[in-house]
């Protein structure tokens, strides 16, 4: 019996280490957060979203305020519609503009918001039309060469 309880203890310890490891993986490595921020959806219409992916950051002045939920074509299939989840405590004036920017020279794309000054606030599901599309390095080089 003495040996048996010893084994039980070691197996229990093994299970605890495994569970602890899973927790460390989830929170320390995976960055899973329990505080699931409540958020609302804002749409934005861009003429070009090349390089932007779902789950990309949405930020104001470099501070993360949400993420990209979905990227789709607009109903008339001419421009791109980006659906973003914005944290609930952030209120955006109606003349807010959005642009697709790159972190670093070759880094990943994110959506940057420029907060306007209007007193009216964007409601959940509203659309931002004042947008600036992603900067294409190739286009820029092309323009430079033409000049």
């Amino acid at each position, binding site marked *: 019996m003495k040996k*048996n309880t010893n*084994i*039980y203890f*070691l*197996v229990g*310890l*093994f*299970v605890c*280490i*495994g569970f602890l*490891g*899973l927790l*460390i*993986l*989830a929170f*320390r*490595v*995976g*960055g*899973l957060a329990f505080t699931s921020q409540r958020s609302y959806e804002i749409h934005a219409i861009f003429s070009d979203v090349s390089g932007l992916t779902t789950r990309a950051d949405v930020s104001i002045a470099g501070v993360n305020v949400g993420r990209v939920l979905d990227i789709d074509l607009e109903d008339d299939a001419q421009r791109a519609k980006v659906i973003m989840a914005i944290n609930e405590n952030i209120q955006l004036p109606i003349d807010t503009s959005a642009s697709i920017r790159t972190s670093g020279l070759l880094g990943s794309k994110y959506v940057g918001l420029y907060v306007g000054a209007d007193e009216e606030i964007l409601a959940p599901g509203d659309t931002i039309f004042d947008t600036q599309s992603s900067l294409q390095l190739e286009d820029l080089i092309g323009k430079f060469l033409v000049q």
Partner: protein
Amino acid sequence: MIKIIQKLGYSTLELVTNIGLASIFLFNSIWAIPNFKKSFPIFIKQVYFLGVLSLLIIGLSGLFIGMVLGLQGYTILIDFGSEAQVGQLVALTLLRELSPVVSAILFAGRAGSATTAEIGLMKATEQISSLEMMGIDPFHRIIGPRFWAGVFSVPVLSIIFSIVGIWGGAAIVVELLGVSDGLYWGNMIAVVDWQEDIVSSIIKSVVFAILVIWVALYQGFYCYPTAEGISSATTKTVVFSSLLVLCFDFLLTALLF
């Protein structure tokens, strides 16, 4: 000529028979826990033998593999000036591929072969036949608890492997090579996804666990009850389960990522 075709036919039939036998065997092992109260102590004992005693080899391998990944990743990435990404390199390599695969292969070598030899010897000394004569189903008493203990232990070992590896990488990259630890952990957190990377890693290692312990138990249970038979069954366990793990790793990677 006819002899060659006969031989081909014979080995085909044998292969199909073996696959069928192994499938029935797997099915029986999965449904082999009828009396929870009686089987549980055996299960715990097997978790001790298969899991706890494998901790040392898994931990050491994880540590060294993580350190090597950190070192290699650093020497390559420093050329591009992006040595800050080495954290995500170490974490993704470990979680997606190395920790499920290497821990399953190490488990096959450390615990799978031992299980085969144990059951093979039980068969050679006719302990299994005596159990059957006493009206005890060997699947309930021997195979089932070992099967479930293996399926339970390997994912835990794989998680421990990842953690130790990531810490080992951090030890080399942050402490020795001087990359800021904020960059190491921050880039890792930004890229590693809970569902895509961590859950997939666990799914992979559960599948590998089933494969390895299945092969080990099957080889032990159906080996020739002689000294030679046991030795060849032990070899087959390590070879087949390693090959199966690598093959299924490719399939699962294609499916999951």
